[in-house]
């Protein structure tokens, strides 16, 4: 009897030793001492951000993907930047005026702005960028830039952009992400795709200068001491650490190897529950909302071309369950194709399709699809992107929910490049489930999915092939409206029609999560957090006095 007792004692000793060790570890953890420090920003420190992959280039004039913009938005500047509510604020442009007819945008540029190589920044750079780089190659802003008639430079610090027709979301594409301003003296007369500054030593005007890019490992930027905003940026350097695996990214954040994860495509959503429990970090939903939903191939399978069938499917989906279990609660149930994340455009009074299995069954019976052998009515293919966390789990739930209504869903899991070809180019699908970003404005993110002119066979255009002249007209009306009330009215009506015709069943607006350690302050105030690294400061830095730095 003695031995087990003895063993128990040693086990107890071991457990207490381990607990003591863990407590000590906790106490030593410097984050605990950091605590909240408010007041003025402090200077110094390095912020390490986690991201999924290397940027393809550091030339934001030719490439507009988020992964590129995450880095280049700190090297280059835009004419303006947007705050959390998408309101424009001065960046390279100090002020601007829009003519009453919405056709002429006149920008007054900041004085004494220098490129990282010391050359002065002028209106010629702005003109050059829109005419030769972003206006030509940037896929995201292309729609907006195509609308530019002419760019005049009446003075070295004045730029006049004339539009062919009024385009209400124009300011929104002038941020460092879309409308990054590039140095004319570096790119003029060169082959922009082969310019050595694309990969090494990009010459920007932004808060940070390029220091090093070790492919597959990290990109390092260092403070630009001559940045045009006085006293900014506050950090000494920013490192973008490339960690492809989401689980590893989450672990690296927990261990402090990275201090922040910004932007929707880098946040490890599968690990959100664990990250939420961390005490020394802040999670915030910020960024352009996205529409997650079921999209129908209206001109493909004759079954889904029937409106009753689409309505039945809508009634058969328990959206709340999909969001809670499929999206791990990281999203909101939505009823319209414009998510409530764009509050001014969102119409809450669209026709709704509440979860009601009886109604779904009745509609399907009426549509001439009675239950056959095994209780199934018909089979449909549901395509989605492999590895996309917005789709992988929800589609499993959708399959079960639709089974209850007698619809046999065959899941088609495609790797991204295959999905782009099958669904968006060849229209070889019945249903597609996944997220579509709205870019914070229906003219940018919603019109491309529903207007007839967007049936182009290119990725993320009108792939349901929905076509309604009334909707086309309303989208046109909204984009050229000079009064916000007119624009809002048009979008309200568009949503009403779209929810009646049901080319899409809106399911959820995915939260765009960002996470940062509490040792860093000042972050998360912009629509795209990574565009504003100049405002982040480290609590252990040297305090700055009022007047030492420019406030926004």
């Amino acid at each position, binding site marked *: 009897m003695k031995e087990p007792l003895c063993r128990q004692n040693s086990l107890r000793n071991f457990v207490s030793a381990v607990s003591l060790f863990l407590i000590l570890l906790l106490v030593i953890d410097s984050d605990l001492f950091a605590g909240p420090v408010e007041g003025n920003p402090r200077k110094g420190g390095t912020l390490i951000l986690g991201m999924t992959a290397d940027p393809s280039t550091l030339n934001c004039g030719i490439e507009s993907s988020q992964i590129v913009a995450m880095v280049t938005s700190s090297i280059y500047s835009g004419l303006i930047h947007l705050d959390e509510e998408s309101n424009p604020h001065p960046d390279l442009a100090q002020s601007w005026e829009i003519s009453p007819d919405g056709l002429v945008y006149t920008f007054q540029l900041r004085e004494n702005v220098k490129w990282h190589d010391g050359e002065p920044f002028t209106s010629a750079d702005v003109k050059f960028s829109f005419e030769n780089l972003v206006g030509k190659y940037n896929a995201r802003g292309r729609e907006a830039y195509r609308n530019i008639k002419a760019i005049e430079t009446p003075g070295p610090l004045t730029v006049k952009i004339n539009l062919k027709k009024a385009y209400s979301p124009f300011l929104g594409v002038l941020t460092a992400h879309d409308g990054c301003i590039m140095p004319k003296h570096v790119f003029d007369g060169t082959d922009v795709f082969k310019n050595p500054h694309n*990969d090494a030593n990009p010459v920007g005007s932004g808060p940070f200068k390029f220091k090093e890019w070790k492919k*597959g490992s990290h990109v390092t930027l260092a403070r630009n001491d001559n940045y045009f905003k006085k006293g900014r940026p506050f950090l000494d350097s920013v490192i973008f650490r*490339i960690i492809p695996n989401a689980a*590893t990214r989450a*672990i690296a954040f927990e261990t402090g190897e990275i201090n922040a994860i910004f932007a929707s495509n880098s946040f490890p959503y599968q690990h959100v529950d664990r990250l939420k429990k961390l005490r020394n970090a802040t999670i915030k939903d910020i960024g352009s909302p996205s529409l997650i939903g079921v999209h129908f191939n209206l001109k493909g399978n004759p079954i889904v071309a029937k409106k009753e069938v689409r309505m039945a499917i809508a009634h058969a989906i328990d959206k709340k369950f999909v969001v809670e279990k499929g999206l791990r609660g990281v999203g909101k149930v939505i009823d319209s194709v414009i998510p409530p994340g764009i509050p001014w455009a969102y119409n809450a009074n669209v026709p709704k399709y509440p979860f009601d299995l009886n109604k779904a069954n009745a509609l399907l019976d009426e549509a001439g699809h009675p239950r056959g052998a095994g209780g199934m009515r018909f089979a449909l293919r549901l395509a989605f992107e492999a590895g996309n966390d917005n789709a992988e789990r929800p589609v499993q739930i959708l399959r079960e929910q639709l089974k209850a209504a007698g619809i046999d869903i065959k899941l088609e899991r495609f790797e991204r490049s295959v999905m782009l070809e099958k669904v968006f180019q060849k229209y070889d699908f019945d249903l597609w489930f996944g997220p579509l970003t709205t870019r914070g404005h229906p003219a940018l993110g919603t019109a491309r999915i529903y207007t007839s002119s967007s049936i182009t066979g290119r990725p993320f255009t009108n792939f349901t092939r929905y076509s309604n002249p009334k909707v086309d007209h309303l989208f046109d009306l909204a984009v050229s409206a000079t009064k916000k009330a007119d624009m809002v009215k048009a979008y309200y009506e568009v949503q009403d029609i779209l929810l009646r015709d049901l080319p899409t069943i809106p399911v959820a607006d995915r939260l765009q999560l960002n996470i940062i350690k509490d040792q860093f302050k000042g972050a998360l105030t912009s629509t795209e957090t990574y565009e504003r690294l100049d405002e982040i400061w480290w609590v252990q830095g040297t305090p700055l006095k009022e007047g030492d730095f420019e406030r926004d």
Partner: protein
Amino acid sequence: MSIPTFILRRLLHALPLFLCVIVFNFILIHLAPGDPIQALVGEFPAPESYITEMRRAFGLDQPLYIQLLLYVKNIVAGDFGFSFYYRQPVLTVILDRVPATLQLMLPALIFSAIVGILLGILSARQPFSLSDNAISAFSIFGYCVPAFWLGQMLMVIFSIELSWLPSQGIKTVGADLEGLPDFLDRITHLLLPFAALAIRHLAVNARMMRSSMLEVANEDFVRVARAKGLAEKEVIARHMVPNALMPVVTIIGLQVGALIGGSVIIEVVFGLNGMGIYLLEGILRRDLLVVQSLVLIFAMTYVIANLMVDIGYAWLDPRIHYD
């Protein structure tokens, strides 16, 4: 035939094999659905003129057989082509990533070979003893556990719970270390991925060596050696081990391939910027020339590893001649 002539002949034999790899690989990746330009353009609709321009710039507008001929011609000239994604020569990007993969693979290969063989010998000395059973149990565990799971478990234990080792990367970024501190920094970063990658191969080698040793233990020449009155150590070291090594050396040669495959997973799990991650990225982005080049390099590594195994045979067994 002398060994250099043998090597030369084997390499010449490998040439048609390489050609097959190049052609087969080219056909395979072009048969796969998915368009590199669309993958490159991303979520926002790009104008048709831009897409045509890109297609032309990358030579994707040419008929497939012309593309293949051009590709073979370029490879022969040592030109691996251009990465669509990085807009850089493929070779430049690959060379950037070779060190990480080698730093992970070579130690794992050498360690799992040496320690695996030693454990196998130890195990076989007294079959079914405590040490043999312990080694066997460890081997079965090591063989069964998937590397990606083991990697994450190691991370949870040593990075999160104990905070002893970093969870990812090949070195501390931002800390400009040099010399010994840099070396130690790299070692601490590579320890976990190395363990996750090596354990499986270590287990296989140990099991293989054990059964091979037990097999030769019953051979006549071992009985003769013992009858001559040789000490047991001598019998093992001079008679049993060299003979038992033959199948193990074959397995180790084959492991080079498995290690390349394994390093793809380990590199992704631990965020190491090696060729494995690059291959995966290349496939997902349909960065055709990157995938083709990497598969070719991996095939070449495999052929060379097998050649070295063949040379190893001659060294181990004087009966084998190359003629």
